[in-house]
């Protein structure tokens, strides 16, 4: 397995349905063995990309290269790419065994070889005991495993998974996420995974590709996408985030000075946008530190303060909405601290807000 050699390349892909241009001049290159997730709002073209790679749709323009050779004009049955469909699409008239054997039968493999490989694949997804059942006699999670076995048994270069977990309940979904990830490591097959669920995307992928309306907004590791969003769309789409708009007043030794919602602040940042330029300061809720202010206590000069408007208990964390004097609302999320038992703000409590220098993201607005 050669890392970094692209197994699939989409170059200048344009795809329209009638009047609607869904993908415009899209370029995408995925390395061998990568677990890539396409993340984006509904209708942004994620499924369309998978269908183009699988060969169910033809691009209007652009080429698709699989391991260096052009497959743009190849029909889907000739491509070494397999799909796990969102609805699983197991053939209802065949048993689990027959379903998994279907692809191998098409390859004209010998009966004994097929039997061995199907049994291996079923064992891998822990479905050996169900080989003689019909899909209708299986639960959603079991069907899902069969669908994976049926695709994986073909030993594809790329496995395409279109929201394969969306039909499962929360617990099963978590379990399948781990299993899929392990399977991918074990097989070394490139996975292209589509999901709506940003948490799923972050926890499973080597690389996350965030899309909006057919355009790739950012492509990077989960950490990069979460901690250094390339733009406001990515910042807002991947997780919760507080966005504070401000103007750079003047450069300082370590960053720049600005007014945030009326409070004078100094942002310590390597990025120093020109004085006078509009910037957005982005802060994740969990990066905010909230401190209670005693009744008479005056807030320190230079810090931001507000009032607790609402708190939501989330199990491991406590989320609070804090209103600044300007009316701006901030979301803060904190882990419960064993040592700090009485950590439950009263509504209407005055609080000071701060964050670790350098954890904020500064985006320059054009």
């Amino acid at each position, binding site marked *: 397995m050669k890392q970094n050699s692209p197994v699939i390349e989409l170059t200048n892909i344009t795809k329209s349905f009638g009047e609607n241009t869904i993908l415009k001049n899209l370029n995408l290159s995925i390395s061998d063995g990568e677990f890539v997730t396409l993340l984006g709002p509904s209708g942004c073209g994620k499924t369309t990309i998978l269908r183009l790679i*699988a*060969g*169910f749709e033809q691009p209007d323009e652009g080429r698709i290269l699989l391991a260096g050779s052009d497959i743009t004009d190849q*029909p*889907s*049955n*000739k491509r070494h*790419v*397999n*799909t796990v*469909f969102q*609805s*699983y*699409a*197991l*053939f*209802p*008239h065949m048993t689990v065994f027959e379903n998994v054997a*279907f*692809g191998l039968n*098409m*390859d004209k493999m010998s009966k004994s070889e097929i039997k061995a490989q199907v049994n291996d694949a079923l064992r891998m997804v822990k479905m050996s005991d169900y080989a003689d059942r*019909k*899909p*209708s006699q*299986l639960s*959603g999670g079991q*069907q899902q495993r069969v669908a994976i076995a*049926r*695709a994986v048994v*073909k030993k594809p270069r790329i496995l395409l998974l279109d929201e394969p977990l969306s*039909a499962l309940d929360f617990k099963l979904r978590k379990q399948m996420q781990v299993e899929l990830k392990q399977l991918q490591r074990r097989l070394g097959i490139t996975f292209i995974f589509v999901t709506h669920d940003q948490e799923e995307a972050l926890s499973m992928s080597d690389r996350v590709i965030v899309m909006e309306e057919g355009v790739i907004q950012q492509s990077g590791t989960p950490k990069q996408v979460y901690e250094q969003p390339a733009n406001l769309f990515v910042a807002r789409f991947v997780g919760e985030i507080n966005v504070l708009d401000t103007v750079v007043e003047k450069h300082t030794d370590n960053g720049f000075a600005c007014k945030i919602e009326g409070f004078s602040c100094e942002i310590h940042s390597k990025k120093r946008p020109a004085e006078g330029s509009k910037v957005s300061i982005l802060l994740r809720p969990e990066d905010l530190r909230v401190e209670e202010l005693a009744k008479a206590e005056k807030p320190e000069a230079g810090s931001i303060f507000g009032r607790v408007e609402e708190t939501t208990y989330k199990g491991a964390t406590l989320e609070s909405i804090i209103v600044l004097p300007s009316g701006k609302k901030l979301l803060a999320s904190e882990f419960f601290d064993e040592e700090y038992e009485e950590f439950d703000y009263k509504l209407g409590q005055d609080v000071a807000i701060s964050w670790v220098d350098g954890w904020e993201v500064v985006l320059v607005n054009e």
Partner: protein
Amino acid sequence: MNERSLFKTIVISIISLWFLIFVFVPNILVFAVSFLERHENNFVTFSFTLENYQRIFTSVYFTVFAESFRLAFISMLICLLVGYPFAYRLARLKGRVKHILFMLIIIPFWTSSLIRTYAIMIVLKTNGLLNKTLLATGIISEPLELLYTGTAVTIGMVYSLLPFMILPLYASIEKLDKVYIEAAGDLGANKIQTFIKVIIPLTMPGIIAGCILVFLPSFCLFYIPDLMGGAKELLIGNLIKNQFLSARDWPFGSAVSVVLSCIMAVLLLVYYKSTKLVQKSGERGGI
């Protein structure tokens, strides 16, 4: 609620009464008559006999049954071969063309099938439309002798019964989710393999329903062999008709009728069992 149940009761009573008077009673009569003896003037005499049934199993009548089966089978096969591609295209079409094609199937139902039989005879006869066209275009030099042959009877049957094949096929192909076809392609099946391994099995209920709907009625359309075969072809339908109307042998006609009903009942049972089987294996997995 009471009003509704009253309405329901009335409707069900009317239908039940209808079935009793026009289906059940006549069938009982036919069944009874089939065990009686023939009489020159009164049609039947009231003495029990099994002779009518014994007569059916003589070679002459056996040939009639065999011939009827052969014709029914061939008509069914042709209807299936012609109807399937048509229904497939129809199910995948959208918009106006689809509506127009649907109308083309439905419109013949508005005309008596007897009249339609005469219509197709006009097309097929020696100096009819078909021969004239073929002669004019120079494809043939001698007019084809089509009418009053076995071929004509088959054409007539197919013509009359094709819609009964197309409609159930259409219904089951329409229901077929395209994702199965894509999945087959994804797994390496070419178009033919996909058709044989996936599309045919998944549309089997429609295929069986269509075949039954063509096969069974083809026994009863006695006027098609009568008119188009020039009464040369003797089929079960004609046999029954002749016994009642020409030979005036009601008991024998009844016996043939009863046997035919039994055969149909068996076929329907087979159909019922097979759809059950297909349905069981065809229950859609997942969402």
